[in-house]
């Protein structure tokens, strides 16, 4: 079962890349308190992303002719691992680098590739993903935002929600209906590139439960799109989005969301010298899970490297990985609260409080847990 999903090693070729990523990440977080580092995914720092671009750390898997690194998925694994382990702010390039550029490479025209990819590789162009709508979360095929042919181009009407980084982004790649109605499901969907500064676009940030505004509602009121706004073929949006989600779900990012907190807790234990039996068992159990998940994520990357689309395997890693990310703050809170006479720094407390609050989002973003398990069940031959 899942025979090709097997242990692999990261090729040794990427050690220089790792060293550069590590140095830049360390510099970026030097003055940031732990609870700010814990916001790595949503940390917006355009200057840092441009530095990564200048150092050749973005668009690693994209062809050199478009300004990319011309390397394989392992190169991206190594760099992402360093950035997230350090808690570096990745939001300003995250989505464009991970999803939008590969999507444009795979489905876009030659002109679109040249127009968008080089700027993404320089860390100068921010994209957002416009999939979710108020009425369409897990049931993505029910989207109602519509692009209608008007003259040469399109007119866009509707609304997206939970769009990460929309307030900073230049463009959104939106999944929209170009024909038929919501009842037609997967037929009649397309992807379009929307300039978020165009007339008729309104972006309204939404605060999350920790008080941060990293995602937004985006309204389209008769927005004019040029004819070349369409990415890929009209009516092929569903197939394209499915391929896009395979990039989104298979990276190392589904393991490391709580790792800044884990290191903060380890530092606390080391400084107090506390190594009681319950604590060592807890620390070791988490380390065993981290090591196993890393092996699984690397195995998944090896499948990508071999040109496969490991949809089921990526779902396995994401579900197990997000469970680990979610268990960490609960276990750490229990461990600290069972030693009440031991002083805990404000910084660690704030980090713990933050990760505890946002942890439920880990198994929602990028596809909810139950949906992923449905994909795995199908892979087992149950549907």
């Amino acid at each position: 079962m899942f025979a090709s999903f097997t242990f692999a090693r990261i090729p040794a070729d990427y050690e220089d890349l790792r060293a550069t990523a590590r140095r830049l990440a360390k510099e970026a977080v030097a003055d940031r308190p732990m609870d700010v580092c814990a916001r790595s995914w949503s940390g917006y720092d355009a200057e840092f992303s441009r530095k990564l671009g200048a150092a050749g750390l973005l668009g690693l898997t994209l062809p050199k002719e478009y300004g990319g690194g011309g390397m394989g998925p392992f190169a991206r694994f190594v760099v992402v691992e360093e950035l997230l382990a350090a808690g570096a702010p990745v939001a300003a390039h995250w989505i464009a680098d991970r999803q939008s550029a590969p999507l444009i490479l795979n489905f876009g025209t030659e002109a679109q590739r040249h127009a968008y990819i080089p700027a993404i590789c320089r860390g100068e162009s921010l994209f957002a993903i416009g999939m979710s709508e108020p009425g369409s979360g897990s049931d993505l095929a029910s989207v109602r935002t519509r692009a209608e042919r008007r003259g040469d181009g399109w007119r866009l009407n509707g609304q997206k929600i939970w769009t990460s980084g929309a307030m900073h982004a230049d463009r959104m790649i939106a999944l929209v209906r170009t024909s038929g109605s919501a009842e037609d499901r997967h037929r009649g969907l397309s992807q379009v590139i929307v300039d978020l500064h165009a007339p008729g676009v309104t972006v309204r940030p939404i605060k999350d439960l920790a008080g941060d505004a990293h995602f937004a509602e985006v309204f389209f009121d008769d927005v004019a799109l040029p004819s070349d706004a369409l990415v890929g073929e009209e009516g092929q949006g569903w197939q394209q989005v499915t391929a896009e989600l395979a990039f989104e779900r298979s990276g190392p990012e589904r393991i490391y969301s709580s790792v800044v907190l884990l290191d903060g807790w380890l530092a606390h234990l080391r400084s107090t010298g506390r190594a009681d039996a319950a604590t060592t068992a807890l620390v070791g159990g988490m380390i065993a899970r981290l090591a196993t998940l890393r092996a699984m994520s690397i195995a998944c990357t090896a499948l990508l490297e071999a040109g496969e689309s490991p949809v089921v395997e990526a779902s396995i890693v994401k579900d197990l990985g997000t469970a680990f990310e979610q268990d960490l703050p609960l276990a750490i809170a229990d461990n600290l609260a069972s030693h009440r006479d031991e002083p805990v720094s404000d910084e660690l407390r704030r980090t713990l409080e933050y990760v505890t609050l946002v942890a439920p989002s880990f198994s929602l973003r990028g596809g909810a847990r139950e949906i992923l398990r449905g994909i795995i069940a199908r892979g087992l031959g149950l549907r």
Partner: protein
Amino acid sequence: MDRSELAQPFERMIAGLFPPGRVREGNGWDAERREIEASGFLDLLAGDDALAFDHAVPLFIVLGRHAAPLGIGREMIARGGLGDGAEAILLAAAIAGAGERVLEMAVAYANDRVQFGKPIGKQQAVQQNLALMAEHVVAVRLAAELAAADFPDGGAMKAAVAKATASELAPRIASAAHAVCGAMGIGMEHDLQLFTRRLHQWRAEAGSETLHSRALGIAVLADDRSAVDWVRAEVFREA
């Protein structure tokens, strides 16, 4: 040698020697010893042209898939002169094999058993449990493969990772399989119990999850590296 090339003849032999009927009788493996001895498999991990240790993982997965006596594996380890860590890693591989087998049994039963007018495997609650079970089975196998790579380099910490993971997940895999198979799986006559019984035994054998987790925890707390750096260096042995 390709792993499946290696495992296939072993799989045929073990499947032939240990059909469920014979496993159920549980007379050890003395009767079968001569046949296995003659095949040369017991010496695969010994001698100058011994197999690379990571190739032992598929062999132990086969032992697990057939609920075969671990005495066979132990003999292979002893002849190879491999230490304690080896046993923990290969037990994790055996747990992966037994886990894979009970997952297959549970999936087959879920597709077969009809209640409320359709196979229970069409029920989302059952699908979700089987999906989680598959995640756990894959996790145990990857942990064993990770630990076996380049053994004995980093052997103690790798063994602890593999056995902590396998022992943590073995009982959860066993319970999930029993939940899906209903009363049928509780019967002595059904094969499921042959494998879930092993899962519980092998979980405790050579140390349970808490023992191995503590060894890891003590080592990590005595160090000053970050979690990811520690794991990369001490378990993955990356530069």
